[in-house]
């Protein structure tokens, strides 16, 4: 089996991740709900996960990492915790439904959608030109989950800061692949189970100190029990209920793996694999690639179609005949497909990880070539 659907979740994890999960499952307690030894042991493991995340994002406030079940929850916490009726928000045509659906659930929200170019790149000045006096938030996908293009978030951060507007980064496709300096951004949502190599059911939201998010989930936090409201301090304010302690122990091991290997090494390796793919796919007849050739402009994905074949058919052929796992369809980001011109076929997405090999990529290229010749 060749797994190339790592933008959805990484299938292969470092062995340390499995070990950390198993160790916590073997002897676990509820973190932050008691002060006995086992509870504190679990609590400290959770805190160490926050510390590892703080190292990864280069900030010195581990408590500002809100742990969530995935990036979608993190984005919901940020969007619904900031925006209110009649606010204006700026977002882009390359966003995932985990941004779009929360936005459209808010009554009377004014939404400006900045359109990307043919590859989906957003021009920062277009963000600037969309700003209004009522703009409360700018949301941008650091890298598209459809074709992998990486946006210029540093430039957009400068624009947002110059206007005093909050900026939310969706780092679902970049956390663990591209260095992100958390000090430059107000909020960063990220999954734990993709390129941070944690288990599914893990993710998080980094929130800078200047922001006090409204809660959208309330409940037990192990503190202020007499109050009918969640406490004001991070992370407890946004972490009601028992956390996925085994999962976040695994996430810590995954983040430590990324820190040890180095995001530059990980990214360079993955780009070598993407370049192998690009060099071959661009030379095949009947095949159109929707990602730029320069893989420096990508995270870990590229998208393509074979002639007029529906992307689902290509993915099914790769799976059934050759045991290669890729993702077809619209990737929960239909506006991105409108931008790329793939709204009818969808697109076949290949997304690599640090655990894929050049041999796997060579075999995948051969199989795509065979399918393209069979039509």
């Amino acid at each position: 089996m060749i797994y190339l659907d790592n933008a959805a979740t990484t299938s292969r994890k470092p062995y340390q991740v499995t070990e950390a999960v198993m160790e916590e499952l073997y002897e676990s307690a509820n973190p932050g709900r008691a002060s006995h030894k086992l509870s504190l042991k679990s609590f400290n493991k959770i805190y160490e996960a926050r510390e590892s995340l703080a190292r990864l994002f280069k900030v010195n406030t581990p408590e500002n990492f809100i742990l969530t079940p995935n990036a979608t929850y993190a984005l919901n916490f940020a969007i619904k915790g900031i925006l209110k009726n009649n606010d204006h928000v700026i977002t882009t045509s390359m966003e995932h439904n985990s941004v779009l659906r929360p936005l459209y659930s808010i009554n009377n929200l004014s939404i400006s959608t900045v359109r990307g170019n043919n590859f989906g790149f957003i021009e920062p000045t277009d963000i600037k030109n969309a700003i209004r006096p009522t703009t409360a938030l700018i949301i941008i996908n650091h890298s598209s989950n459809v074709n992998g293009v990486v946006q210029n978030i540093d430039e957009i951060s400068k624009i947002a800061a110059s206007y005093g507007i909050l900026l939310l980064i969706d780092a679902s496709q970049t956390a663990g692949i591209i260095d992100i300096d958390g000090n430059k951004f107000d909020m960063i949502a990220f999954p734990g189970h993709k390129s941070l190599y944690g288990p599914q059911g893990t993710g998080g939201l980094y929130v800078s100190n200047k922001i006090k998010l409204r809660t959208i989930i309330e409940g037990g936090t192990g503190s202020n029990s007499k109050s009918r409201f969640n406490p004001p301090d991070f992370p407890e304010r946004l972490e009601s209920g028992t956390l996925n302690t085994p999962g976040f122990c695994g996430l810590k091991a995954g983040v430590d793996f990324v820190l040890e290997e180095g995001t530059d090494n990980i990214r360079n390796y993955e780009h070598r694999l993407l370049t192998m793919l690009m060099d071959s796919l661009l030379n095949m007849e009947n095949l159109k690639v929707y990602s730029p050739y320069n893989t420096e402009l990508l995270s870990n994905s590229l998208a393509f179609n074979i002639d007029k074949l529906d992307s689902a058919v290509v993915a099914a052929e790769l799976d059934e005949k050759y045991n290669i796992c890729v993702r077809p369809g619209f990737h929960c980001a239909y506006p991105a497909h409108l931008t790329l011109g793939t709204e009818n076929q969808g697109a076949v997405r290949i997304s690599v990880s640090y655990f894929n090999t050049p041999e796997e990529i060579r075999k995948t290229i051969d199989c795509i070539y065979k399918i393209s010749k069979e039509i």
Partner: protein
Amino acid sequence: MKYYLAVFSSITFANKIKKLLSDRPGFIALMHTPSVLNENGCSYCLRFREDKLSEVKSAAYENNIKIKSIYLEDSSGYKKIK
């Protein structure tokens, strides 16, 4: 031996101070704040020897963490000093 209790607004902050001071000699324990002292329900505090008070206060100050209240524990109970 007399002890102080320093009460924090969250277990995260209490634990952060404990970790910062864990390599120093002396007894520092993280515990549930005694119910009789709780104004808002459950909270967490650090319990430490009286000679550790300045270390706890300066660690909290340096890390921008607010100590909600400080109590002196003796044989007669708790006396609020902050």
